[in-house]
């Protein structure tokens, strides 16, 4: 969506910029005279993010649960999360924009350079996730205005499968009508079938179908970890990397947060060195050094492989293009998982 051509998006960007200015003024009145402009950092259905100088305002997805978002913002502001999650700009309150979208305001932190994935802070990622998972849930819960929400990772994976089904259903119609290269259509169908087989073989909790069967290990989880979720702390007195994006934060199986990099590694997309650096740092910080992580990682890593493959198929089908090499590697992973599952039985 291009805000220049979409009046609704342009209005949302202006509203968010105004909110960011108002909140950052509370913190630093000198910002009034600052000439720094607005920039749109991200614009997707599940979140529009606008930066104004040192502040960032985010409009959350239209279907966001207000009570759960309020609890999540308060978690980010809690002292137990200092040095782990980037805290919001005070007050730690959710704003409601004209039109009903919920919005939050944060300090701007410099993200990981997308052009330098090999120099990414893998050790810091492992350490900060271990510290997040070590937060004591009982005392934290006592300081929150509502119940600790569930980590939304499995729900997001289920949504990705839904998106793939919708996109490929439309694609099949496109093929029938002769608008899509049949070879591309067949590639998408094969990828979709492999992804569905992986999905069908997952435990119910990984598909967000039966939260009652979540493994007994329960911790505060990020729920959507990737390299875009790390920023440098903007606070000069407390440097280091912080986690951002609280939309999926909540109680759940901590293996989920490690499982996406694990799935990249298992697909041959992430180097053994980067994976080992992150895993070693995590295990060092969590006191589990040297133990085999895969008994816990296996099911979530299969779920996240299916999620990534589903999103790849959905995007490729929507664009009418073939899967690229990285996306194919995910589909190959799905095929291997499905083959093993066929040998093993359910």
């Amino acid at each position: 969506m291009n805000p220049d051509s979409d009046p609704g998006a342009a209005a949302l960007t202006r509203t968010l910029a105004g909110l960011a200015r108002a909140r950052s003024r509370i913190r630093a009145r000198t910002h009034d005279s600052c000439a720094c402009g607005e920039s749109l950092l991200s614009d997707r259905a599940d979140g529009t993010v606008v930066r104004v100088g040192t502040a960032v305002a985010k409009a959350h997805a239209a279907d966001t649960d207000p009570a759960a978002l309020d609890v999540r913002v308060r978690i980010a502001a809690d002292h137990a999360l200092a040095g782990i999650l980037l805290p919001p700009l005070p007050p730690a309150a959710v704003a409601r924009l004209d039109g009903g979208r919920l919005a939050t305001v944060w300090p701007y932190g410099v993200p990981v350079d997308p052009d330098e994935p090999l120099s990414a802070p893998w050790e810091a990622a492992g350490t900060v996730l271990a510290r997040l998972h070590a937060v004591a849930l009982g005392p934290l819960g006592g300081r929150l205005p509502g119940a600790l929400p569930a980590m939304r990772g499995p729900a997001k994976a289920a949504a990705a499968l839904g998106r793939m089904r919708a996109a490929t259903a439309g694609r099949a119609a496109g093929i029938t009508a002769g608008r899509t290269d049949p070879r591309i259509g067949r590639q998408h169908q094969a990828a979709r079938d492999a992804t569905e087989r992986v999905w069908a073989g997952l435990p119910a909790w990984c598909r967000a179908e039966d939260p009652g069967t979540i493994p007994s290990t329960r911790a505060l989880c990020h729920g959507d970890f990737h390299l875009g979720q790390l920023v440098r702390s903007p606070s000069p007195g407390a440097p280091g990397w912080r986690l951002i994006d609280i939309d999926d934060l909540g109680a759940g199986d901590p293996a989920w947060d490690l499982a996406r990099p694990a799935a990249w590694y298992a697909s041959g997309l992430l180097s053994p060195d980067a994976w080992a650096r992150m895993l070693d740092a995590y295990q060092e910080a969590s006191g589990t050094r040297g133990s085999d992580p895969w008994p816990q990682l296996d099911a979530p890593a299969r779920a996240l492989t299916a999620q990534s493959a589903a999103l790849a198929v959905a995007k490729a089908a929507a664009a009418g293009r073939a899967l690229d090499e990285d996306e194919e590697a995910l589909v190959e992973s799905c095929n291997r998982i499905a083959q093993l599952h066929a040998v093993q039985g359910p």
Partner: protein
Amino acid sequence: MQCPKCGAPMQTFNRSGVQIEQCGGCRGIFLDYGELDALSRFESQWSQQPAPGPPPPPQGPGPAPQAYPAAPAWGAPHQGQHGYHGGHQGHHGKHGGRQGFGRMLFSS
């Protein structure tokens, strides 16, 4: 490349993460060093019960024998318990962590 048997051009295919060349004329297949091993290993992996990988090796300083961290039974060839094969890493520049991989690292 040209087929050594009939001279027709050969095309590159990716089979289970292993790149092979197939002749467009006689359909013969050319495998680079180590690729047959990789395919055989992959085949036997399918017929085995998946077992958890061994614990990751201690990461001591200095040049320890090259080994990959543990990987699941469904991991890509060249990974995890399938060990390191001298001369094979970086053979295709694909499975050792790639340069063009940035986009996926930064999204859900």
